[in-house]
């Protein structure tokens, strides 16, 4: 599913002349694993009050999110053509109510973890057995609200809350470390009282293992990824945070993705 989703995301960003393909390609493996049976949610249970909740807090990775949801059967793949076009359903940042499976409209960073912790504490108080997964970007950890929530979730021992940080190392202009250094990132989360796991964010088996039920703390998975993963000329290139592929670049990207 991940490879299909990559090709769909690249097509969407090219046809919609949109941005953020690099951010989409880095998180597609993580989201694919979540929707491959790890999170207890499916197209048929998306309105169930006891479903697991997947929140994409890095809402700019919209093409990647829509691609995974479409290939997971939440809506018809034909809707991909409506990405970032006038009157289309799919917007450049994920928007709730547009397609099934989007739990929270995001696009402004630093909202998903706090919203998710609200669901988590409500479930904890009610004794409901459900898990909340929040997929965040690493640049998002610049936001103060992330750390407000880090305090809160640890204080309340929200072990039903799992944050996954797409640690691709790049943000808008340059690397996270030359923008506003995050390292030692694992140690920061540990110091806030979270259980921290560090994995290869493109290794599905490692992700699945890390996403198993945590202990008695909220847990964060720092997933090492490559921005633009799967398309050689996009990998690790900050330019593809904003750039949209032209026809030649689209052809090149698809030939790499289809040949894998």
């Amino acid at each position: 599913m991940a490879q299909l989703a990559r090709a769909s995301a690249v097509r969407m960003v090219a046809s919609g002349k949109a941005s953020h393909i690099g951010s989409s390609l880095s998180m597609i493996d993580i989201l694919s694993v979540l929707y491959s049976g790890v999170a207890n949610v499916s197209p048929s249970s998306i309105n169930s009050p006891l479903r697991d909740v997947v929140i994409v807090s890095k809402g700019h990775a919209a093409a990647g999110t829509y691609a995974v949801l479409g290939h997971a059967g939440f809506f018809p793949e034909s809707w991909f053509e409506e990405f970032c076009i006038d009157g289309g359903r799919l917007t450049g940042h994920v928007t709730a109510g547009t397609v099934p499976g989007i739990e929270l409209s995001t696009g402004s960073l630093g909202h998903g973890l706090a919203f998710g912790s609200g669901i988590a504490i409500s479930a904890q108080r009610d004794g409901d057995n459900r898990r909340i997964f929040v997929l965040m970007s690493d640049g998002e950890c610049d936001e103060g609200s992330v750390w407000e929530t880090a305090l809160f979730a640890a204080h309340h021992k929200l072990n039903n809350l799992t944050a996954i940080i797409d640690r691709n190392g790049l943000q808008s202009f340059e690397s996270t470390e030359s923008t506003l250094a995050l390292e030692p990132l694992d140690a920061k989360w540990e110091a806030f009282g979270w259980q921290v796991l560090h994995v290869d964010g493109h290794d599905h088996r490692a992700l699945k293992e890390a996403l198993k039920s945590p202990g008695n703390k909220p847990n964060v998975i720092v997933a090492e990824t490559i921005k633009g993963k799967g398309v050689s000329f996009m990998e690790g290139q900050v330019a593809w945070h904003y750039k949209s592929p032209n026809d030649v670049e689209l052809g090149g990207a698809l030939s790499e993705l289809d040949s894998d």
Partner: protein
Amino acid sequence: MRTALMRRITDSASSDPSIMFVTGDLGFSVVEEFRDLLPKQFINCGVAEQAMMSMAAGIASTNKRVFAYSISNFATFRCLEQIRNDITFHGHSVCIVSVGAGASYGTLGYSHHGLEDLAIMRVLPGMRIFSPADNYETSSAIDAFLDEPGPTYLRLGRAPATQIHAGVPNISRGALEVRSGSDASILATGSVVSACLSAAESLSDSGVDVQVVSVPRIKPFPIGQILELTQGRSLITVEEHSTTGGFGSALLESLSSQRESRFVSVLGFPPEGLEVHGSQGFLNKAAGIDPSGIVKSVIDHLRAQR
């Protein structure tokens, strides 16, 4: 009004476990009873208003109704985007309880004044706004939120010494006559209604007979009810808020959209603020919304109208 507020919320929450109360570490000496009686429904989020508003939305998304409590400036400006993106855009049932509205915390200084909150809450799509004048209107606003949940802003000032109403009014009408009169109509919102009643008394001693209408619901703006109650008279609005973007502005916008022509004066805090510091009474007097200031403005209004 905070005591009446907490009594009403606690009563409702005692019989309904889906009612939650979250606070940004405020409400000392007021919220403890709720916390001790209903610990499973109480969360102190700490001094973290941004996370609190997103969390409140998340809790509400699990089919709950959430009261989110803080001082008006912290409950609005600090976390405006969380309110906009996570609460109103998604239509989650969070009632933001904004205490100390206007200049209630006068001597605490500018950081604690809530004089622009109505303007920014009004502009948010889907936000309903209540600004009660006394304990009875406050109770009615809470009932309205619980009966018809949805994004709600409840603006509470300091309770007047005497109650405006004799019992719980039906706030769903949006505007309520609290004194009849034929020369002009004073429309007021929040605890300043009390000062308007005092002003009307003084004016009647000098032969000027003004109606006073309390407007506890600012959004949706009850323009139909106001037009009906005021019967073509000229209007003076009074609010403990900037004259930009608040209650008076809402009236003028509504009159315009209704193609209704009335002679209107808007009283409130000057848009650029005051250059003096002091208590609520002192600041309201400086802004001209104490009883004597209102009397003077009504006389000026009637003179200008002729």
